[in-house]
């Protein structure tokens, strides 16, 4: 097995030693530097869709998503600036304006990553008009529900179902703002034959979009800690087989 080369670079002025196959996000976390994320989840493949983790790199105006960018020797990365802070607030504004996120009546109120991100980045009001789309709730599954009003299209559910559970019940249909999470071939979740009812999608969902039935306002707490364990265990097996 080819070993990755070791390099050094800087994040926010701090010297970082790294393998070149580690992403800037992983390295920032290892070194206690906070970069906000939403679609990223340790144990799942990187998606690069939410753009919250964009960072600046010295020498270019371009922004790079920390979750999918690998450092190179001598690189200087900056994770916080007025520009980045403003853009992160803008992303959250866009998400809140896109669908109907009504925190006060949401099952995940108080335990929601979107709500938490708005809090931690100081996004306290949405400047752009709300789009107020009319969206469905799929309550056809006996154990769980899917509320499209709360979905941020992070696709964690799609990835966990495909990569960890191996069922690939979830996928995305439609384009742009019409994109939706669908079960199997756009069927009610309860009729999706591939679903094993394992509930992993519910646990990794950052908002109240996927929830356990019976949970009332602010009662839905999620546990995604099984993920790094499962994915590491799987990686271990694969290495043994090699």
């Amino acid at each position, binding site marked *: 097995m080819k070993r990755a080369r070791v390099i050094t670079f800087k994040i926010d002025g701090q010297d970082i030693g790294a393998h070149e196959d580690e992403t800037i996000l992983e390295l920032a976390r290892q070194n206690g530097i906070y970069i906000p994320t939403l679609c990223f989840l340790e144990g799942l493949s990187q*998606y*690069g*869709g*939410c*753009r919250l983790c*964009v960072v600046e790199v010295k020498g270019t*105006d*371009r*922004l790079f*998503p920390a979750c*999918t*960018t690998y450092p190179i020797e001598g690189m200087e990365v900056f994770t916080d600036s007025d520009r980045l802070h*403003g*853009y992160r607030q*803008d*992303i959250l504004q*866009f*998400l809140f*304006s*896109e669908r109907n996120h009504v925190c006060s009546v949401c099952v995940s109120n108080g335990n929601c990553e979107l709500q938490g991100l708005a809090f931690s980045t100081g996004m306290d009001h949405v*400047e*752009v*008009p*709300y*789009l*107020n789309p009319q969206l469905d709730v799929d309550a056809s599954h006996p154990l769980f529900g899917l509320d499209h009003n709360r979905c*941020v*299209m992070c696709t964690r559910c799609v990835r966990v179902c495909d990569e960890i559970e191996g069922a690939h019940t979830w*996928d*995305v249909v*439609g*384009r*742009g*703002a*019409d*994109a939706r999470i669908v079960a199997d071939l756009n069927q009610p979740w309860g009729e999706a034959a591939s679903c094993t009812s394992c509930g992993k999608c519910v646990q990794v969902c950052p908002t109240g979009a996927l929830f356990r039935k019976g949970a009332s306002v602010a009662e839905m707490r999620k546990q995604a800690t099984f993920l790094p364990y499962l994915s590491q265990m799987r990686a271990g097996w694969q290495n043994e087989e090699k």
Partner: protein
Amino acid sequence: MIDRFEKIKRKEREAAAGVDYTIGVCVAASCLSLQGDKVLDAFQEGIEGPKEEGSPPSRCRAKGVGCLGLCSRGPLVSVTKQQDQPADDQSRVLYQDVTVDDAPRILEAHEADKTVPDILCPTDTPFFERQIKIVLENSGKIDPTRIEEYIAADGYHALLEAVTEMTPNQVIDEIVRSGLRGRGGGGYPTGLKWTTVAKAQEEKVKYVICNADEGDPGAFMDRSVLESDPHRIIEGMTIAGYAVGASRGYIYVRGEYPLAIGRLKKAINQARRQNVLGNGICGTTFNFQIEIRLGAGAFVCGEETALIASIEGKRGQPRPRPPYPAELGLWHEPTLINNVETFANIAPIIRNGGDWFASYGTATSNGTKVFALAGSVAKNGLIEVPMGITLHEIVEELGGGTANGHQIKAVQTGGPSGGCIPASYFETPVDYESLKKLGSIMGSGGLITMDETSNMVDVARYFMEFCMAESCGKCVPCRVGTVHLHNLLDKIYNGKATHKDLALLERLCSFVSETSLCGLGQAAPNPIRSTLRFFREEYLDLLVDEPVHAISEEVAA
């Protein structure tokens, strides 16, 4: 192999020599939609149909040919007088707006060595005379459904030369020397791309992809090339496969181009039979297969990583680059991906040498560029001009100004990723750098002209509506931003917006372009930015001091 080519050439010459006039009827999509096929049938009927007893055989033959350029006057018909030398434009007359009823008149006139003056299309105009044809050299001359005619026009000779007399490195050197840059829009040096893919580990399987997912509104260059001269693409891709060490190629064509797809399929089969595609090409050990993949109408699938995902059978959405496809492409293997027009330039470069190609165009943008000239100009159609020509020459001279007597106000290049260039900048030479400086891009070649009657806010709104409908929805800035930008433009256009809204629009433009994942989102604000830069007063004119019921904006949304 060369003997076989010579034999085909000789046969083609003999067939042409049997008659005095060759009538070429355009059977590309635009003329077909105006019943070009029926016109061709009418000619064939007139030539081969029952005649009076004892009348001499016709001195004419008729065939379908590719695009003749001036699409706004179709169906177009060319009549070429047979000479010993290959036909050049001087011995050719062109008829415009030809109907089925015109066919007997044209036949009758030419049987008597005359012409039909009332439907003659003047070819001594800048539209025809200012063009230099490299990509379109065979368009309108050969029958796109017959490989023999392509070979007779020196087709597949470059491939034969490449695989039998040149090393892959020599082929790449020639491309590098030509200075050819990607014609899909980005303008990335083609030679450099080929070098990178060629340098990827040798033991790797590699792929060549032709991006024929032409999606810009107003652009139809690639479709025309595929319909008029499909073998040119196959030859270009096969040479590329030889140069970079790939044995498999895909042409990703949008499903809305059924004619192009049909002709490509036919061409691939013909090429296999002539041993210029498939296993042991031209008697060497080089193998190269080409398959066609159809796009399902998503604009974003023209983005290379989304296109690759689509070929793999996945949802067509982009992924962050790097790694670039040259390193990690189709099925995670090194992949060369070029646009139709780029591949169309390969055979002439190998045939005539990189230096020959570099002699056309400007210092940094070599060769020619095909443009789809559309909009308010008098002459709509397909043109191929040398790089460095000014916009003024294209619009006023080739295009002949406007048809309705209004002044041309601006041209839009680069589709939804490009920008609007005002008439005051029409002396700008058309090359990658100059257009970029003006906030537009070369793009794939759509060139939409607008006259004074166009409102630039409305133009920007149109392109934003396009981006909104075509955003894949993967990244937040593009998915939601295009909706907000569109709604803001709508509000401004409808006279309900204030200066505050304009400020928000400008701020969101920077945000969306800087944080979006792929080129579509990053470039989506370009039409707004360029119209704001050159036509700001049109925005300001529409603003109001007091918001018109801040409420109603959300109703519209």
